[in-house]
């Protein structure tokens, strides 16, 4: 009976945050899907494919009470309202310090790569950007970690990749990978 009462009425919400903003790239991990492990420095691989796993730094801000006037169910919600996105990613660029995939060094490779949140579900850059939450959409974990697939084995050599993410306010977040030697 007590459980029924609790489930019916709910418990006071602890509140949440108003907004979530992508603030930076926290880290880029090189993951070898054939070995099923991340590569650590000095990194070398003979795999046909590598994944760059991008972890973003998210700032949540401005405490938000989960309350909608006139609706008791919202006032006594089990979960606080979702944070809204305060910015959105408008472009992702990938550069390499060496010529790769027929492109010169320091050329944007994004159009030749695929992006996604799972290894087996990858999209083109345009479709991936469309799938990310826009400004004032609910915060989505998809923005926190995503993958860039280097799905073609390049020439033997040592490569350093640079990832640039740009938001709707013109902020550009930059991160480099560790050097990876492709055998």
């Amino acid at each position: 009976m007590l459980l029924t009462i609790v489930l019916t009425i709910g418990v006071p919400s602890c509140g949440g945050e108003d907004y979530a903003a992508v603030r930076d790239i926290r880290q880029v991990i090189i993951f070898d899907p054939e070995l099923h492990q991340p590569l650590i420095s000095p990194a070398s691989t003979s795999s046909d494919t590598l994944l760059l796993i991008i972890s973003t730094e998210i700032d949540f801000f401005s405490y938000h009470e989960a309350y909608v006037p006139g609706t008791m169910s919202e006032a006594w919600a089990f979960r606080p309202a979702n944070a809204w996105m305060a910015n959105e990613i408008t472009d992702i660029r990938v550069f390499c310090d060496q010529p790769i995939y027929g492109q010169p060094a320091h050329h944007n490779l994004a159009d030749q790569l695929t992006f996604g949140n799972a290894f087996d579900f990858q999209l083109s850059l345009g479709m991936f950007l469309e799938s990310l939450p826009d400004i004032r959409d609910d915060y989505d974990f998809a923005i926190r970690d995503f993958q860039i697939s280097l799905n073609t084995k390049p020439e033997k050599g040592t490569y350093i990749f640079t990832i640039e993410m740009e938001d709707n306010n013109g902020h550009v977040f930059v991160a480099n990978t560790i050097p990876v030697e492709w055998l």
Partner: protein
Amino acid sequence: MKRNLLFLISLFTGLSLNAQDKRAFHQPFQIKVEPLELGYDYSRIGIGIEKKFMAHSLWTSFHYGTNLDYSQARDSPSGHFEYYEVELGAKRILYSDYGEYFFGGNVGFDKGKRYVDDDVYYDIDGKFAVLLENAYNYRTRLSLFLENGYEFYIGKRFSIETSAGLGLRSVQNYYSYVTNPFRLNNIEPREYRKKSQQKYVGQWIKVAVTGGLKLGWRI
């Protein structure tokens, strides 16, 4: 009704109902302390002087406040806080057996400065938000109040004054010395929170009420 009308007219024309009462002449100066402000989240103290004439008085008061214990700071301001206020006022005094009624007005200016870190502010007019590493938040207020009250005499030296008032405040809230600002365009507060007013940058005018309790010491 007619009596009330005459009373109001006398207030504004400066005519005294008890012009012969000499008590104000005998104790023309008072030092007044406002102890209740020590109970604020950020403890303040107010001290001032009052010069009394036959049926009027002029007074001024200076207030200083700070947070003595940072761990008690609530609602985001996370660091040192300082507050200054100057008030000037005038009263029309009506004597009674145990003290004096008064009616008057005052103008005040105050400025608060607080250190904040790892916070956000919203520019309401510009419709943008700024995440910041640390900064100073300033709030200035120009206040104009009409007030009335009563001052009880406690012996010849001391008094307790209570008052209440209604007025207007022009409030300006701004930030400076912002380090590592991260601007987010097209962002407004999802919900206006009275307890988080320091987060809203801009200038606005609002109706305000005031109340006070002063301990007076006659010189």
